[in-house]
């Protein structure tokens, strides 16, 4: 199974990922998560803009997907905490995100994620969080 196939299969196992309509593409070891726009993701129909919770959830799932890509022997990590910074309204269009694993410890991973729409240099939101890594046995 190629890394991309393994990632697709991992994401397909999570019902909530399907609910969001999120997918992810690998270019070598670099992963880009993609959230196509869908009407049901809207939080503010006046602008319209994606729900802040959806943006946060997409960032968190991107962090978990990146950990899944790089931690092949582990179970799904548990989120310990996340801080989400909202920079611009996420408009009714496709959103992208990339995660940076700042530190992978024995038990804890520190991860940063940034999401953007038109221009990567103008992110719509950023996340930093801590995730508890779990061994395959435990």
């Amino acid at each position: 199974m190629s890394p991309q196939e393994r990632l697709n299969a991992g994401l397909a196992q999570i019902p909530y990922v399907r609910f969001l309509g999120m997918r992810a593409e690998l270019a070598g070891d670099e992963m880009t998560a993609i959230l196509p726009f869908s009407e049901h993701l809207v939080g503010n129909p006046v602008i319209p803009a994606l729900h802040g919770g959806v943006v946060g959830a997409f960032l968190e799932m991107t962090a978990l997907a990146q950990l899944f890509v790089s931690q092949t022997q582990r179970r799904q990590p548990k989120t310990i905490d996340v801080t989400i910074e909202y920079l611009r309204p996420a408009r009714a269009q496709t959103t992208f995100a990339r995660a940076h694993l700042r530190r992978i410890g024995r038990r804890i991973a520190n991860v940063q994620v940034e999401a953007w729409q038109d221009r990567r240099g103008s992110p719509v939101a950023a996340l930093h969080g801590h995730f508890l890594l779990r061994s395959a046995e435990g």
Partner: protein
Amino acid sequence: MTDAILDAAELGREMMRRTPQSAALGFEYVAAPEPDVGAMKAPFRDDLVGDPVGQVIAGGVITTLLDHTCGLAISLALRAQEAPGAEAAARMGAMATLDFRIDYMRPARPRSDVIGRAHCYRITRSVAFVRAVAFEDDPADPIATAQAAFAINRAGAGA
């Protein structure tokens, strides 16, 4: 007192109806212990599972629940202020999340509904500070707690 509670119920239901994402998640209004507390329920659904092994509702659903509940709490805080324009500002779209921190104390119980409660403990002319908690049946045994700051756009005033 009764009026305030009815207001909260009406406001909560209106916010859920007008927000496609909360309708898609099936959020329900639930009564809060105090008139200035916003409360909502995320009913468990198979398509919202984040950990298929544990059959636990996804963290992202809890994020959205708490964010949405914070919005309700701010609307209640704005309504409680007599200032003209508070009514209009209380509507959705008049506030934007600045930052949102969530701590996950423990996983939600398998196949369990989750309730979110939020309280806007401080509101200035342009910023609202909110705390929120997610739990199944006992707020003293939280699944997650959140702390957030929102920018407020009052009607007829600059940010």
